[in-house]
């Protein structure tokens, strides 16, 4: 059975890139436009991994991670955050909130796939 990855990002282009890269590698991808949308889309289906941006309107990535970690069903799934090089502090906050790792933007499709494979085997 293929694994399902939730991609949360307010940028449509990044969502599209993440989605295409992962679908091509055989994963199922569900897209969400911000933290609030992302949290809603975790309900009622099995999610194996989340890739989320940090800077988003309505609900940011950190809050999303915190909320996801309280859900017993999602407590142990890998969560990867998309950060930029200048956000060392944000990365720390994300880690404390329970993120598994991070990818620094801009990234190439292979880099994304590399990290996904690293945490989701």
């Amino acid at each position, binding site marked *: 059975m293929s694994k399902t990855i939730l991609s949360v990002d307010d940028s449509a282009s990044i969502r599209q890139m993440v989605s295409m890269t992962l679908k091509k590698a055989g994963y199922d991808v569900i897209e969400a436009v911000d933290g609030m949308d992302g949290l809603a889309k975790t309900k009622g289906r099995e999610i194996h991994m989340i890739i989320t941006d940090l800077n988003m309107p309505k609900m940011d990535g950190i809050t999303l991670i915190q909320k996801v970690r309280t859900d017993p069903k999602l407590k142990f799934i890998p969560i990867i955050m998309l950060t930029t090089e200048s956000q060392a502090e944000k990365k720390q906050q994300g880690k404390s909130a329970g993120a598994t790792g991070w990818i620094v933007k*801009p990234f190439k499709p292979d880099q994304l796939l590399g990290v996904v494979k690293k945490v989701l085997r």
Partner: protein
Amino acid sequence: MSNDELDAARGVFLEETGELLEQLEESLLALEENPDDQDLVGSVFRALHTIKGSGAMFGFDRISTFTHEVETAFELIRSGVLQVNRKIIDLTLGSRDIIREMLDDPDAEDTSIDMRAQAITDQLLTYTRANDDERVSPQEETIMDVSGGALATWRIRFKPPEDLFTTGTDPGHLLDDLRELGDCTIAVVTEDIPTLSELDPERLFLTWEILLTTDKGKDSIEDVFIFVSDHATIRIDLVEQYQEDVGAEDIIERVHRLGEILVSRGDLDEEQILFALKEQKKLGEILLEKGMLSETKIDLAIQEQEHLKKTEQKLQSKRKTTTEASIRVTSSKLDNLVNLVGELVTVQARLSQEANTRNDTQLLFLAEEVERLSNELRDNTMNIRMVPIGTTFGKFRRLVRDLSAELGREVNLVTRGGDTELDKTVIEKLDDPLVHLIRNSLDHGIEPPSVRQAAGKPPLGELIMEAEHSGAYVIIRIKDDGNGIDREKIRKRAIERNLMDEGDVLSDSELYSFIFSPGFSTAQVVSSVSGRGVGMDVVRTNIESLRGSVDVESQEGEGTTVTLKIPLTLAIIEGLLSRVGNESYIIPLANVEECVELEEKAKEGSKDRNLVNLRGELVPYVYLRDHFQVRSSPPEVEQIIITCLDGRRTGFVVDEVVGQHQTVIKNLGYLYRDIREISGATILGDGTLALIIDVSNLISDVRGSKYN
């Protein structure tokens, strides 16, 4: 992603960025009204941030780079370092318009956009640069150093946080990653697992200990743990490093005793090991019996012992073939060493002299011993600086190939004795002279194929470069099988240039030496390669600056051989020590042929002509006492040191020839740089100075002054 998919994603990016720019404008205008509204600042920042990030990802580098600068300003505003003001709003609005233009025509080569972008960036920098120190340079974080190099065994202790599972990390994946790096021995420490009643299945109580042999370096190991390094306890220790060029026999000598390993692991100290070893049993058993260590810890140490043994066995079998060891040292360190050895040789000479004067057997014995050691040290040190000339020869293959194509020659370059070693500084200075000589051979020497065939020679010419040792010298020969040197041409040209008279009868070597005079060329046509007459005199000057000599032999129609005689090293020479009055002079032994006595009557017979009859040959001499204006009266019998340079003999008259002397050359220093006749100085055993005579310059100066 395929190209189609990438194009689709780019399409989405263009559309999305268009929307973001609209939103950016709105937010900026609103921000101007309410400069303290943090939501608006956040919205502007997010828009810029997304444009930058996606821009870079979809190949809009120009947009990304430019937006980065603007984003930086808003990051500072967001964190309260910078205040929103009208100027910043203006600049950001201007940036927005530029991004729009870049977006509409991404591939345009319109430099005016770049110029306007630069103008805005410059102005923004005046706001952001003030806070530059606080910002982390973006590269620093993204570049991960994965450079490794030498093979090494690492001990990795990995104790994850108990809540590792709640960050979605599977420790098994990390171990898999380590296995990919190299040979792994993995042990699990289960000591910390609580009793079943207290066991929380969602928490992790294991510790791993991994022995990893890899050439990827510590950074690669740290990269494996990059996502967990903040919360886990990770210790990476170097256990053993295996040198690249070590021979198999060096590896075999390393025996890893359990005791040593336990001490290196920090489990026990040496005293405890010695105490336990008194029992004369296996260390592991004793320690266990005495309860000094837990079984787990002993097992881990034994495992480490085995891992190391296995690795070394593997390496041994692999490296039995490669043995030559080498080490890289900066040349300045070597220069320093050579200088120090020079000083030592000087001091040793003084010591020997002192021992001789005191006639103390004990001291004499010591002085001899020091002399033997310092000579050995000197030879070894000089040897370190030696490099084979083969690489220099190799460089000329290309030159020969290109030149022969240009000149319409067919030439086969043969090199011999490439493993002949020479001082590195000497080799570097040989490049230019060799280039000139090769050019000459190809241009004047080796004929075009048709001419060669007409003369009954094989069309393919041969150019031989060879090197060989000869005492303290290296002889380098450049041989060609070309046309040889046309004596008549040289004769004519020499007469034209007033270098000789029409009636003079000159030997071949005297005639050939005219080639080395400045501005001398017999080529009818000046080509780009040679014929300007600047080449050969440069060759001679260069070689002589190395205290070497040049010699030309030629057979008309059969070829020319140029022989360079180069001293092995520049730092120490063998010299002939001589005295004039109270002054000491050293003449490089390389130039000396013989020493004869100058009898009073021989001098009288050749009054003012300074010629001595040496077995029938009249040899001119330089009277050093007069030349250096030494004020003292000459002894009854004087000595002439006969030197030979370019086949011409010249004598130097001195009071006394003291003998051969190991001469450590000291520079005279900047102030005396214009003195041509003295190439340096050396300190003698008694602490006095001796000047080293530059034979060739002195002769040419004397000759010049006689002609004038």
